[in-house]
């Protein structure tokens, strides 16, 4: 089974066959592994590879922690390459997303309002820390999707700037 992958932002390939894996960076470096894997918890595995012992953890962010080192992993099954995302351009519409789970304590803008680049838009608080989200560009507030007092999850869209 062959996979294309993007590992910490860089393209690579992985080939699995039985208890063997071949890993190949686009830049040429490669590594063959003879491995065994055993689950030790929820989303947590003991991996033995070439005799060395690793603790691997699948993080909710989709990252993988290997012996405590966090690595961004995107895997594409070659049979479903449509899954492969390209880095999206960041012009035009911009969404303001909550950087952490928390509670909205102040909304400093309203829909239709013009804003400057760097202007404070919304303040989210969690664990006694306030985080002010600033406008990534000068523009107009298209939509405000939250209100003071609302509880938000990390990644929730709070506002849209155009």
């Amino acid at each position, binding site marked *: 089974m062959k996979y294309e*992958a993007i590992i910490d932002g860089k393209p*690579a390939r992985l080939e699995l066959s039985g208890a063997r894996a071949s890993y190949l960076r686009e830049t040429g470096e490669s590594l063959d592994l003879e491995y065994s894997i055993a689950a030790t918890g929820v989303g947590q595995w003991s991996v033995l590879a070439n005799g060395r012992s690793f603790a691997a953890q699948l993080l909710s962010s989709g990252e993988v922690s290997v012996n405590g080192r966090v690595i961004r992993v995107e895997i594409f099954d070659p049979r479903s390459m449509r899954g492969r995302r390209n880095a999206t351009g960041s012009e035009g519409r911009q969404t303001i997303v909550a950087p952490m789970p928390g509670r909205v304590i102040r909304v400093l803008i309203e829909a239709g309002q013009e804003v400057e680049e760097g202007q404070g838009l919304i303040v989210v608080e969690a664990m006694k*820390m306030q985080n002010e989200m600033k406008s990534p560009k000068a523009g107009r507030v298209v939509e405000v999707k939250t209100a003071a007092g609302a509880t938000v999850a990390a990644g929730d869209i709070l506002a849209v700037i155009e």
Partner: protein
Amino acid sequence: MFRKVLVANRGEIAVRVIRALRETGIASVAVYSDVDRASLAVQLADEAAHLGPAAASESYLRIDKIIAAAHSHRADAIHPGYGFLSENAEFAEACAAAGIVFIGPPAAAIRQMGSKTAARQLAIAAGAPVVPGTVSAVTNLDDAKRTAEQLGYPVLLKASAGGGGKGMRRVDRAEDLEAAIRDASSEALRAFHNGDVYIEKLVVEPRHIEIQVLGDQHGNLIHLGERECSIQRRHQKVIEECPSPVMSTYPELRERMGEAALRIARAANYSNAGTMEFLVDRERNFYFLEMNTRLQVEHPVTELVTGLDLVQWQLKIAAGEKLTIRQEDVQWSGSAIECRIYAEDPDHQYLPSPGRITELTEPAGPGVRLDSGVYEGWNVPLDYDPLLAKLAAWGPSREAAMARLQRALSEYVIGGIRTNRAFFREILDDEVFRAGTLSTAFLDEFPGRRQSAKPDLEAEAIAALIGALAQKKPTAARRGNAAEWLKSGRESLFR
């Protein structure tokens, strides 16, 4: 001794106090807000009382509710922990008025030391060195400017009623002073309901070293040595140790600072546990900063090197017992270092990371002490401080303590949320930290020394492998039902 004590706190410190109560044979009452119903403290306590909604202002800060809970559970004393109401003189007085012993210093001492300006005045009167600066709150800009000129920039604005870095501003130039005073004052007003700020000379790259004192109600007062707390982010300590590396080289400094701390404590008629915070400059001059009139977060390092249990002593002292340890009985053995494990992302501006702990493996074994307030499955609420646990290690030398702490950190797995665990591993490997040449600027400078992790082919390959296997069976986790899980355990489900 008390029969039953209510613990007016939450998280790891509530657990710590409940443990001391159990070891002393005293029944414990935990309190909880809506989101803390299933907390570890509630589980470990003998009894538990509901306070109210998650917001601290509706639960852990409600003096009336806490006194009512103590009454209905027939507790004869209250331990406040740290934070929340622990340094609130009104709370101490309300306890006394309700016939409940407040486990801490006299209300008068809390009040006096709670005002940083009053504490400074008292320290000066007691002959202890303080950081040069105003002793009273800034009332007009012109005076403030004159003071700052006299002290010489940089200066530091601090909230009179403050703590934890709130209402604090460094000012480097005269033209920034007005805005800084306004900002600091409004932040102080929000945080402490008191907008008073004062001006101090900024000690450049100081060590932050504190002295633990312990006194009974019969006039006996001793100090238990220092804790080095220079490693701070946003004025919040993250690593503490005893002895301070500077005192390993200059042991007479402990004696001098201990004496100064005792002079201040005596002047304040202090009893119970308390901590004097000092700045120490490069020439080993020290300056009294403020006193914390409560148990410190970092008290375990003192316990590890002295063998004393500070919380058990707090209980005894509050019950009127005499301190049976004389100053000359206090021995400091080996070295202890503590890391504060926070639910935060050190790679992204220390952003908080509340949420469910889906996986927890805790370190243990020789020389390791863990004071934790969480468990696997616990949902870390977003309403409070991000402190999850304190991991401390003891060793016969600083090197041995560092090695054990590294080892313990390598075993610590917390899944589901981000923590600063890995960040500590880097700090403990840092040459400057290992050399012990610490200052409060450490964490500002450290990122510049951080090795940008070199791409590691082996780790990448394993990460890719895990990613591929997880994708290969994308629904394995969904398909497995819990009955099967119960039967054959986790391995079958996630293999």
